[in-house]
């Protein structure tokens, strides 16, 4: 008789009986073997500007071939992609797109990178891993946008194929992660440190939700942790919340709140804080030394780029990032 299995991909560590599906909805125990239900079956496929991911210090003004399957390891009440992240694979329209075909299409659309994104790439780990291996052979970079809720061993293995990661650091309290996301903060902080150790280019996104994670003191603590543990060069994107899913009663994040978060980050020593989902000067990149406008952005469009061979055109200081 088939026994229980334990999934070792994310910190939830689901224990599954025969034919039981994991909390992420993408793994199943069949006769004592754990299988992926989403391998090669993306429900979202698109070519996006890399700035949309958002990556502001990684191959600017290039296209990212972006894919996602259904499922997620968390259940954030504010999820902006809840229609597919909180769905089961059989509840979405998915297409058959094996790893080799992902790379083929990325090449066809002249994408410099493949981004595993939209929902949560951890849940389609095997698909991401196999695709990333092939992509490397063809000189295509691999990036992911993830909540970072993944165990160390799979993360370190994946990091060998990853060129960049944007991690959602949703808040800086266990209470928020438990109450609002159904997870824990500590594994995400550990994942950030691992990515830094593995020299994966790192950017962080913080969705600022009014009344839940917009406390200036907490934002300050988060920024100081980032500077201390990851370094001042990690770009941090403070993103505007729009009412979605289970938090439709909250207002969108006020611009003043976002600007305050931006200033707190700068005061904490973060060299490249940005604002996202909102038009402002804080979408552009300024040299941390001489304040020259380096990359002017309007939305996802790069209007001008004054970074020359990875350095500021004016003062010559090296600008952190992957520019070619």
């Amino acid at each position, binding site marked *: 008789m088939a*026994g*229980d*299995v*334990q*999934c*070792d*991909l994310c910190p939830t560590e689901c*224990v599954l009986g025969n034919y039981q599906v994991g909390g992420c909805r993408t*793994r199943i125990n*069949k006769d*004592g*073997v*754990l*299988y*992926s239900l989403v*391998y*090669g079956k993306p429900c979202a496929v698109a070519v996006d500007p890399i700035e949309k991911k958002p990556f502001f210090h990684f191959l600017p003004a290039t296209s990212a071939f972006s894919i996602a399957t259904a499922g997620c390891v968390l259940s954030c009440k504010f999820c902006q992609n809840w229609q597919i992240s909180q769905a089961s694979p059989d509840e979405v329209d998915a297409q*058959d797109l094996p790893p080799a075909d992902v790379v083929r299409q990325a090449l066809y659309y002249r994408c410099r990178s493949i981004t595993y994104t939209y929902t949560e790439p951890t849940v389609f*780990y*095997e*698909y991401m*891993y196999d695709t990333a291996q092939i992509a490397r052979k063809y000189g295509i970079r691999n990036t992911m946008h993830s909540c970072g809720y993944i*165990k160390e*061993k*799979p993360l370190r293995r994946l990091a060998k194929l990853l060129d960049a990661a944007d991690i959602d650091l949703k808040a800086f309290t266990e209470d928020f992660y438990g109450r609002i996301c159904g997870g824990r903060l500590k594994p995400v902080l550990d994942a950030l440190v691992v990515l830094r150790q593995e020299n994966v280019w790192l950017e962080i996104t913080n969705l600022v939700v009014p009344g839940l994670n917009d406390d200036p003191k907490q934002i300050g603590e988060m920024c100081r942790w980032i500077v201390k543990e990851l370094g001042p060069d990690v770009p941090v994107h403070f993103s505007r919340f729009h009412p979605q899913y289970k938090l439709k009663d909250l207002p969108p994040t006020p611009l003043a709140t976002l600007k305050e978060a931006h200033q707190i980050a700068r005061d904490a020593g973060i060299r490249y804080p940005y604002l996202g989902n909102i038009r402002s000067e804080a979408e552009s990149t300024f040299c941390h030394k001489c304040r020259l406008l380096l990359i002017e952005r309007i939305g996802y469009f790069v209007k001008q780029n004054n970074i020359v061979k990875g350095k500021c055109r004016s003062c010559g200081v090296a600008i952190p990032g992957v520019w070619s």
Partner: protein
Amino acid sequence: MKMQRRDFLGFFLLGGLLSLLIRKLWPKGLQQPKEAMFWRRKA
């Protein structure tokens, strides 16, 4: 009827075309489920 070389060739080609057709019409039926990379059996 005595089988000739062209008959074998015909059957061979027919088999190949049939296989191609099945792959196109029924791709899911031929796929093996993908085993997860990180898991363990519980005692």
